[in-house]
């Protein structure tokens, strides 16, 4: 296992409720105009957290007692829509180290993996209970265990799921894939040379 391996994450949790929360809601497009990811941790759910005049609204990401949460609890199809990696990047920089939900937009889940953030699934009824527990007491410490594929915390123990290949990639620290892919350059060249379109079909 490399030093990048992710096997368990412990911390408090923050819950965002609702199905089909898209990445435009996670990070509005105007924040994608920066040419680095460095400031993004300030802006998760910016337009839901603040009125147009800048007044703070009631929102989990504005609650002082939620500050420092490492786990994000969501519902179905979280992170659907735009492919912007800025969505998991802004959550990660805010402090989120794992996302637990019923299901995820596919590109979002892949982007999470690419930056070493597990996106793991739980059953809908379990998710509702986990969210209720985190809402009621933001100081509860939960542990996401990628070996046992379980989350525990407070009075809850809940089974988790994720694609086995993704789990292994996170566990073994292979989520940063560039080196592995570049390492196979000779085989890549063979595939390239055998594809008819790379030589103009001649």
């Amino acid at each position: 296992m490399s030093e990048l391996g992710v096997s368990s994450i412990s911390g408090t949790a923050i819950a965002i409720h609702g199905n089909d929360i898209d990445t435009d809601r996670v990070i509005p497009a105007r924040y994608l105009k920066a040419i680095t990811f460095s400031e993004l941790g300030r802006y998760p759910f910016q337009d839901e957290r603040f009125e147009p005049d800048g007044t703070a609204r009631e929102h989990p990401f504005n609650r002082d007692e939620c500050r420092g949460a490492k786990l994000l609890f969501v519902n179905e199809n979280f992170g659907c829509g735009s492919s912007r990696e800025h969505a998991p990047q802004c959550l990660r920089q805010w402090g989120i180290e794992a996302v637990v939900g019923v299901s995820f937009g596919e590109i979002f889940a892949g982007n999470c993996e690419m930056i070493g953030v597990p996106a793991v699934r739980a059953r809908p009824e379990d998710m509702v209970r986990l969210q209720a527990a985190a809402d009621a007491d933001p100081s509860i410490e939960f542990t996401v265990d990628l070996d046992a594929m379980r989350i525990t915390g407070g009075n809850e123990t809940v089974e988790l799921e994720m694609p086995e290949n993704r789990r292994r990639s996170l566990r073994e620290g292979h989520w940063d894939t560039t080196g592995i892919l570049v390492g196979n350059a000779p085989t890549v060249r063979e595939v390239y040379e055998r594809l008819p379109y790379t030589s103009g079909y001649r």
Partner: protein
Amino acid sequence: MAKNTLYDKVWDAHVVTRLPTGQYQLFIGLHLTHEVTTPQAFDMLEERGLGVAYLDRTVATVDHIIPTDSMARPYADEQAEAMMAALETNAKRHNLNFFDFASGRQGIVHVIGPELGLVHPGMTVACGDSHTATHGAFGTLAFGIGTSQVRDVLASQCLSVDPLRVRRIEIGGALRPGVEPKDVTLHVIRRLGVKGGIGYAYEYAGSVIESMSMEGRMTVCNMAIEGGARVGYVNPDETTFDYLRGREYAPDESAWDGAVTHWKSMASDADAQYDDLVRMDGADIAPTVTWGITPGQSVGVGEPLPAVEEFEEADRPTVERAYAHMDLRPGQKMTEVPVDVVFIGSCTNSRLSDLRAAAEIAKKGTVAARVKAIVVPGSQQVKAQAEEEGLDDVFRAAGFEWRNAGCSMCLGMNPDKLVGRQISASTSNRNFIGRQGSAEGRTLLMSPPMAAAAAIEGRVTDVRELA
């Protein structure tokens, strides 16, 4: 498990190896890049001392951040200027094939790829944009990816991916008059849901798709991701080959027959097996308009808006949120809804056939008082062709603004945005809260003729009833 589908054949031809994690290394035949999702990727490449592995399989253009009214540099928005400058620097440093303004071939990345003949049946395509499935119209596997994956493709021309299941969506019969490809794709999403496609590649098929133009097929595939499917495609046929012939990067005449033979061999076999099959009837599809905050929340233009109870319990909070945000009520008809802004453009609907269809409607009247209507061609070439046909004059005479090519009001990254609570009739692909640049703004998705009709009437209108 699917067998002998186009998906399987393209996958098999592009697998490099199985990785230690169990994922597959897949060769990417065409990498389309643009200004928004590349600056961090190029920075990461440089940190690691890597370059672009396959320049001949990589192209760049600029579309998301550019103003569409004036192209004068520097841009008023300093961030947009910095982002454009970063792409120019990276293109120069890495010697990228960059379709900038001076090339005359700039435009929305999903418009210029096909238009230049870069996208061929049987390829794999990747782009740091979720609407990359557009290129599936040519019988490709086209993946929308994030910035770290852009880094991977630049460095290795490969992605690390898991295989998908394949769902064939067969749309039989024929479309009724006034029903457009946009209506077909909105109908599919409404029927199968915005998460129904998670884990699937969608194969769009049946007589409705077979008789559709390439531009129509691009509109259908473009919105696969809005139904949860990362990949959507149509099997290549004579329509595909006719479209490609003679384009700048299409095979030349001496290689043409060999290319077509290869392309035909990549199509799904008649006895291919699928993980799932869904059948729909083209005659059931009406001009469709969204009323909510996901692309699945739509109705046929004449239908009353649905009751909250019609939805599954888990989805009802989203439905309630949609009604509250949109300020609409169950039972209401969309034709009662006035619009403030009309946007005709985006990677979904900014091609010549879209502009022609909208112009036919624009000829019937003038833009209603207090409605702002803009037409944004998808590329410099689309713009030039439209002007040659006089479409710009038709639009201007009717009171529409005629702009330069870009993503414009689809996504709130450039000066074209909604303001406050404005409500727009838009030919783009997303009605998410805040999508068009105002957190309070509202978006109604529809086809180009429907959007043009809304501009003229000042409210959502059944284009079939427009005198």
